[in-house]
């Protein structure tokens, strides 16, 4: 998704496209790039939301502690 969002973003850049026209012609024009860019950005937002929800479901504070300290507190997970 990230390469696609960058590609479709560059395809909307008038100056970039003037130097590298294939970026937009391969996508079928500037308006197609715009549509793709929009939906890819929606998917990226969903991707973030889903992963945040997964962290919360798996135990928010223990995950946060694990991220910061690098250690997993096993005693809470075990109970």
């Amino acid at each position, binding site marked *: 998704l990230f390469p696609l969002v960058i590609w479709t973003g560059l395809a*909307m*850049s*008038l*100056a*970039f*496209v*003037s*130097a590298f*026209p294939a970026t*937009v*012609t391969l996508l079928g024009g*500037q*308006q197609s790039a*715009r549509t793709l860019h929009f939906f890819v950005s929606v998917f990226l937002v969903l991707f973030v939301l889903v992963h945040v929800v997964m962290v919360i479901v798996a135990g928010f504070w223990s995950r946060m502690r694990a991220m910061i300290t690098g250690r997993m507190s096993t005693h809470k997970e075990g109970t």
Partner: protein
Amino acid sequence: MSDLSRRKLITGGLVAGAGVLGLGAAARIAQRYGLVPPDHGGIYGVGETLTYASQRLLTRHSLAREFSPSQISKPPLANEIPPLNDAYKRLQAGGFVDWRVSVTGMVERPATFSLAQLKTYPMRSQITQLACEEGWSYIAEWIGVPLSHVLNVVGIRPQARYVVYYSIDPDWWESIDMADALHPQTFLAYGMNGGELPVGNGGPLRLRLPRQLGYKSVKFITQLTVCDSLKGFGKGLGSAAPEGGYAWYAGI
């Protein structure tokens, strides 16, 4: 703390010092080669500067894509324009015969041109897309005289770095650097799709800049000023666009 040896401290210090000097030198070189846009301050300033600098390095001489006549949008979208002022309406009533565009500033021979005079210069046309910040776009044939030709007629001085251009509406003005001003596809356009340029598309005279967003292609052009610095114009940000929160450089 045992990790922090004298050697590491010295190398670290040298690297940091070189970094600071390098940044300073980079800023100076960028300034010298015209890679710093006038709206480089503020929260978005760093982004604006990186965009402008990288696109100037990559795309200085590149040409915007030209389309075939069959791809021209029908009808050409004329977006909503602010109410035209009395000065415009007077000129419109006279069929734009008295429309004048003056060229001032750092030029050898400041001059004022009528539309008829502009039409005596070599006529060029391009079928290019106009894309707006708002997302819409259309393809049209633009007919006019390359801005570089007009600048050659008046003779730009060597220290010139920017061209500021004004609409008949005093709130609407923009500026471009010399790379864009002398670009072969930058036109003073007076015609469209084989006819006159309609009022809704900027008639009788519009600056056409196909490598940047539509708001840089200012409609109803009445004045051009060649200058070496944009500090004295408006709030010093380069044009009306950054004063309203848009980017000065709109190659995007």
